[in-house]
């Protein structure tokens, strides 16, 4: 009976708070806090590198993913879309580490360096682009044919239909793809260290190599925090830019 007294918000909040307390406790217990405060300058540098990796590869993935996904729905290109979707689907099942390794192995063949920030960015981009392409394509395809017919019949040109009807109505699905991709990128970014991309992966892998939980957690906990912050920002952004008329949770029919 007592459990019922909890509001649903509280019910959701309690496990989150508990996790935070446990993680914070371990963070302190293993000396991650002490390590971080002692190496504050390095912490900021690694965090900065990490954020740069995430934001740049994310921005590129969004631009290319939404662009390609949209292009695949246009007349003339739509014949290619089953083939592209096939590639995208296979691509998405590649393990992230595999993509990093591919960047390391393949770029030198193209005459580029396989080591450094650029290969890391390229690898992260390729890891993230697939869900965005897929969701953009699926989201636009899912816009009702009756809606498109009405728009055409009312005298909208293809550009107006794309920007006023198709993209706004596909937005929840596209944002879903972007959030998935962000999760993938943030989670994969530490691996960038392996090919010299820098970032918080440095502390994580150092910690693992030295079997020092403190150093490892000094890198891992900020990575998790960054993931949560990005997801929160994207959720807020989605709430702002998606029309209330197509938001999943909004309103009951009268």
């Amino acid at each position, binding site marked *: 009976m007592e459990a019922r007294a909890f509001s649903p918000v509280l019910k959701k909040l309690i496990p989150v708070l508990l996790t935070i307390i446990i993680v914070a406790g371990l963070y302190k217990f293993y000396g991650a806090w002490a390590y971080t405060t002692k190496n504050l300058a390095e912490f900021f540098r690694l965090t900065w590198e990490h954020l740069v990796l995430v934001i740049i590869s994310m921005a590129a993935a969004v631009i290319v993913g939404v662009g390609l996904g949209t292009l695949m729905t246009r007349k003339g290109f739509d014949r290619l879309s089953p083939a592209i979707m096939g590639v995208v689907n296979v691509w998405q099942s590649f393990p992230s580490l595999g993509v990093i390794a591919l960047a390391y192995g393949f770029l030198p063949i193209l005459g580029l360096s396989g080591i450094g920030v650029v290969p890391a960015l390229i690898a992260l981009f390729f890891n993230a682009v697939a869900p965005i392409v897929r969701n953009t394509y699926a989201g636009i395809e899912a816009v009702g044919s009756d809606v498109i017919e009405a728009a055409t019949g*009312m*005298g909208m040109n293809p550009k107006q239909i794309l920007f006023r009807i198709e993209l706004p109505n596909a937005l929840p699905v596209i944002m879903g793809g972007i959030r998935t991709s962000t999760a993938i990128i943030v989670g994969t970014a530490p691996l960038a260290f392996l090919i010299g991309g820098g970032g918080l992966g440095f502390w994580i892998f150092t910690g693992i190599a030295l079997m020092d939980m403190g150093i490892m957690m000094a890198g891992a906990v900020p990575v998790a925090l960054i993931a949560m912050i990005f997801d929160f920002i994207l959720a807020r952004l989605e709430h702002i830019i998606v029309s209330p008329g197509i938001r999943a949770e909004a309103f009951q029919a009268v």
Partner: protein
Amino acid sequence: MNIMLKLENVTKIYPGAEHIKAVDELSFDLPEGEICTVVGPSGCGKTTAMKMINRLIPMTSGKIYIDGQNINRLDTIELRRNIGYVIQNIGLFPNMTIAENIAVVPKMKGWDKDRITERAESLLELINLPPEEFMDRYPKELSGGQQQRIGVARAMAVDPPTMLMDEPFGAIDPINREHLQNEFLKIQEKVKKTIVFVTHDIDEAIKMGDKICLLKAGKLVQFAAPETMLTEPANDFVRDFLGGDRTLKRLNLLKLKAAMKPDPPVIMQGESPEKAKAMLTELKVDNLIVVDAEKRLLGYVNHEALEKQADEVGKVTRSTDSFMLASSSLKDGLSEIFTHDLGCLIVVDDDKKVLGILDTEDIREILRR
């Protein structure tokens, strides 16, 4: 009368199906302000015919003129913006509010904000949805019937003289459909648009159309006013399509006013009962209609009622429910007569003024014509 829409030998052959003419040499003239219902069995080309008018489907040959202008000489986008378009699945834009949905075409035509808002409000009033309540809502918050009314309002946003409607009430349940049809006819009386209205339902075609365009396998079988088509079907196909009950269908079309006997004998409420008795005997009728000074219906008297002592007819008048508006259909009138086993029905106008009476013999008479 000004011909608003003219089709001249319009033909459509779809690529890949060259041996079939989806629409075959279709020609008709539709006067301004009339509704033309396009009807026929499925696959007869009715939707294709309609969509060639706003060039959603390019025609293979022939000419279409709107208000004297060849549509092939007009810019497609501009042509479509000047033709109201309503489809069966409504196709409201879910990401836009009702006001924004209505504003789409006015915005593209560069209207200023105030004018668009004003127009949206007056359109919502026209379709009986209070603007303050509906302007800022989203399509998914509305019922199917409400959405379809918004669809109609949106199509009328820039007050286009012509409209195309593709089975607009097809997805609505029968009770609401009837309601929407009546409401739409009332709106049409005010706005007088020239409308091409596609339907597969012959009853709807008869009810909504000033003209019916009946197609079979892409060919025009008959183009006529509903009354003409019902009384003079061009051939057996038309007769079959109208159905065995086509005489009864005329009942739907005809109004009480057309069939009633006008100016029945009445008595004023202030007259003496003796005069009423004399009239009953003289006219050889059982009942006499009692009216007030403005000729408004009060009830009736008969010999039995007049037995009672009274100084004027009004005091012994019996009230009655057996009256109906002159604008009602004969079908409703006949139904009323049979349901309540009435000898006759009193026909009144909106102010309840007595216009005439109607019995089954009058109905028989008009159907014989």
